[in-house]
């Protein structure tokens, strides 16, 4: 998508100057966008990238002349096709929305009305704005479905939104946006909720259709590798300010700002793998299910070597989190055995003694829900110290401070509530709670996936440092291949409740691959603007 000089025509379609947007909360107006310029030519695709709170969605919507309820434009101008959108009447905006500008939202399942058939909603903007009549619109929609490679393009429109999958619905929403052949489409994190293997298909479909109709687009995402496939030019936002902008190749090759480089921080980490034959935890032929009917774990066998990190990787529904529940005793297996330090673990949590519980600790994905908001750090970290080690009073406090230092937080954090610290600090406190038990095995369930890249990198580095110091073993559950590469010695690939492959990192990440591993690995977007093009060529050749 990057070498497209003939597609981008000279005139500016969108021109944003000195835009400031504020949001209302706690009886005050807070700045969200602090004075940003953006200009977009006809046929051009610009990527807006940034982490949570960067204001990228707000800016993207402002290009449509729209602000979310509770937000307002306080300064600056937005011009679209020569028209002033800030001062335009609601009626003028309404006439433009759905005809000249359209929108693709993050969650397709929430953005389609559950009460109407897909076709009805796809043709609605075109027929409503009089772009075409109903019959032509339906024919055109079927054509769009075909171009977007939706299965059964002639009949899928008759279905209701809840009857098709998330990836298909996301493509149907793209057809909906394209139905009136707009000049501009705003894509607001359209693939964030999808698994990587689905994401590839949706990305390819969206890019092809935008190409075919020479539509200008604003593509909003937090994933630089994704935006590199879609955009001619990338703008990096942070805290409502523009950090830098450049065309895609320049941005990837030579970013000028440190912050931009930090956006792929995790990708630069790589632990040197090391082999070990000393098995601390062995899972043998384990089946498990929630209802008793569908097996969520199907004959799973995994061995965890002592003092190493084993990454369990898979998409949603692969059973990777269920594996953690089976190990901890929350979901006793219906078949098979789990052996810890050579002794069989009682399947049920209630049957395990305190010392066994102490040796296996768990860290959760969301520290927001994993830490009791009504307890101070002293209570949270101090409880396992007291419960397992029997320390009280000053000895306990000393140990808490030690632990806080181990996770690189000072002792002044001891009386804080979780609500008073940042997301990354919360995750550190979770780690301290696990460390307090002086465990042999820590299960990390997607511990970095809710965090921004740079914080992820810090947490991963901390975990590796702690492993060096204490020889603790990690079972690291994740869906993110970059994280796997960064932290693991061994990798377990899971798919639909089964183990596809287990082996050393160097084995699993290099050919020959089993088919699913190959699909999974090849679907992970790379920091290369040509990645998607090359991949699609390879796949269609195969």
């Amino acid at each position, binding site marked *: 998508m990057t070498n497209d000089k003939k597609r981008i025509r000279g005139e500016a379609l969108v021109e944003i100057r000195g835009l400031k947007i504020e949001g209302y909360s706690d009886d005050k107006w807070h700045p969200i966008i602090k004075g940003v310029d953006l200009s977009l030519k006809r046929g051009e695709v610009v990527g807006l990238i940034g982490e949570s709170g960067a204001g990228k969605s707000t800016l993207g919507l402002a290009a449509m002349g729209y602000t979310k309820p509770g937000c307002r434009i306080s300064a600056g101008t937005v011009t679209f096709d020569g028209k002033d959108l800030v001062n335009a009447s609601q009626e003028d905006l309404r006439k433009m929305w759905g005809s000249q500008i359209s929108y693709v939202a993050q969650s397709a399942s929430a953005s389609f009305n559950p009460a*109407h058939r897909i076709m009805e909603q796809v043709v609605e903007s075109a027929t409503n704005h009089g772009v075409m009549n109903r019959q032509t619109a339906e024919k055109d929609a079927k054509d769009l479905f075909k171009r977007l490679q939706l299965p059964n393009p002639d009949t899928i429109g008759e279905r209701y939104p809840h009857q098709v999958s998330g990836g298909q619905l996301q493509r149907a929403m793209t057809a909906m946006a394209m139905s009136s052949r707009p000049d501009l489409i705003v894509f607001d994190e359209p693939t964030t909720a999808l698994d990587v293997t689905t994401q590839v298909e949706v990305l390819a479909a969206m890019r092809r259709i935008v190409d075919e109709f020479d539509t200008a687009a604003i593509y909003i995402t937090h994933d630089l590798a994704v935006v590199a496939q879609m955009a001619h030019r990338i703008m990096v936002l942070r805290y409502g300010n523009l950090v830098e902008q450049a065309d895609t190749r320049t941005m990837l090759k030579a970013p000028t700002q440190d912050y931009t480089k930090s956006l792929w921080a995790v990708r630069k980490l790589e632990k040197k793998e090391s082999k070990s034959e000393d098995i601390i935890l062995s899972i043998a032929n384990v089946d498990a299910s929630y209802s008793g009917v569908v097996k969520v774990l199907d004959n799973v066998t995994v061995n965890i070597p002592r003092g190493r990190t084993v990454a369990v990787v898979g998409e949603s529904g692969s059973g990777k989190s269920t594996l953690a529940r089976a190990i901890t005793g929350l979901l006793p297996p219906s078949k098979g055995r789990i052996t810890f330090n050579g002794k069989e673990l009682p399947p049920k949590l209630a049957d395990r003694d305190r010392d066994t519980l102490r040796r296996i600790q768990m860290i959760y994905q969301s520290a927001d829900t994993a830490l009791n908001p009504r307890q101070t750090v002293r209570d949270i970290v101090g409880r396992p110290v007291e419960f397992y080690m029997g320390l009280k009073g000053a000895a306990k406090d000393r140990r808490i401070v030690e632990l806080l230092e181990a996770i690189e937080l000072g002792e002044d954090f001891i009386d804080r509530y979780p609500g008073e610290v940042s997301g990354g600090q919360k995750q550190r406190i979770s780690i301290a709670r696990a460390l307090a038990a002086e465990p042999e095995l820590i299960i990390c369930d997607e511990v970095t996936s809710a965090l921004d890249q740079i914080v992820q990198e810090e947490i991963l580095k901390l975990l590796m440092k702690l492993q060096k110091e204490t020889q603790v073993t990690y079972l690291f559950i994740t869906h993110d291949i970059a994280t796997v590469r960064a932290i693991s010695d061994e990798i377990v690939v899971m798919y639909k409740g089964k183990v596809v492959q287990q082996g050393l990192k160097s084995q699993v990440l290099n050919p020959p691959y089993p088919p699913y591993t190959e699909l999974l690995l090849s679907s992970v977007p790379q920091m290369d603007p040509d990645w998607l093009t090359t991949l699609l060529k390879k796949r269609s050749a195969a």
Partner: protein
Amino acid sequence: MHPVLRTVLQRLGLGLATLLAVSVIIFSTLELLPGGFAEAILGQGATPETVKIFNHQLGLDRPATTRYIEWVSGAVTGDFGKSFAGAGGWRSENVRTVSGIIGPRLYNTFFLAALTAIIAVPLALALGLLTALYRNSWFDRIANALTLTTIASPEFFVAYVLMFFFAVKLRIFSPLSTVNADTAFFEHVIRALLPALTLTLVIVAYMMRMTRAAIIGLLSSPYIEMAKLKGLTGRQVILRHALPNAWAPIATVIAFNLAYLVVGVVVVEVVFVYPGIGQLMVDSVSSRDMPVAQACALIFAATYILLNLMADIVAIVTNPRLLHPK
């Protein structure tokens, strides 16, 4: 079987089971009294003979399970047995049937409830919609404070305030709403208007707040934002995208509030001396005429259950996920 039909049948079954359980509870309250009922009614001075006759006349000398089955099967056909009032005498023709007592009263209560619903439901829905559309405006804030006040006031306070001003001071209505079988329809409406207004004030407050919350919840859905960004007019957004998903919450609001009326009528009927089933129940409770009290309680509970059942069924048959299964 179609999932909608299956879910509706399940819900109907659950409603029926609940009703049955409620009837057992209501019936068994009679059995809770230590020492037998006749003595409690006839007093300490009653001779064993009177007690025996009383018990025999009312069939109380038979096992409880037999009486329960009789009572329930009778209730299905509208026969609730005999009243205690007048029982215990030598002449059994003095004993009146419960359905004979309840019949005309029930009509009056339904008349009052229907009159209230006709005024209150459209008013509350309209006000709820307006406060939702103009939320946080002065209109919304005043409505919020006013409705909170009405909800928190006892019904008899609202009733007496209305009576004091509209009947006693302004003399627009009669302070007492006495009606009988000979009262003409229009006259009946006039007489029942003041109690209906009292009930309206109380339930409009509830309904309006619930409608407001439901509409705000609906309008903040992502698909409504999507509809706006597709350039639909406000009218199209509401009619085409909000309304088809609004039936379930609206039905819930209406059912909840009509069910609330069931309780509200008791006090209001007593205040205005309106001869409905609520007043009858209070009278029968005071005179410990248990068959009448039980029949009234069963009717109230059945109405309550039925209304909630209907709301649930509306929610089921308008749910696209059930209507169009995968």
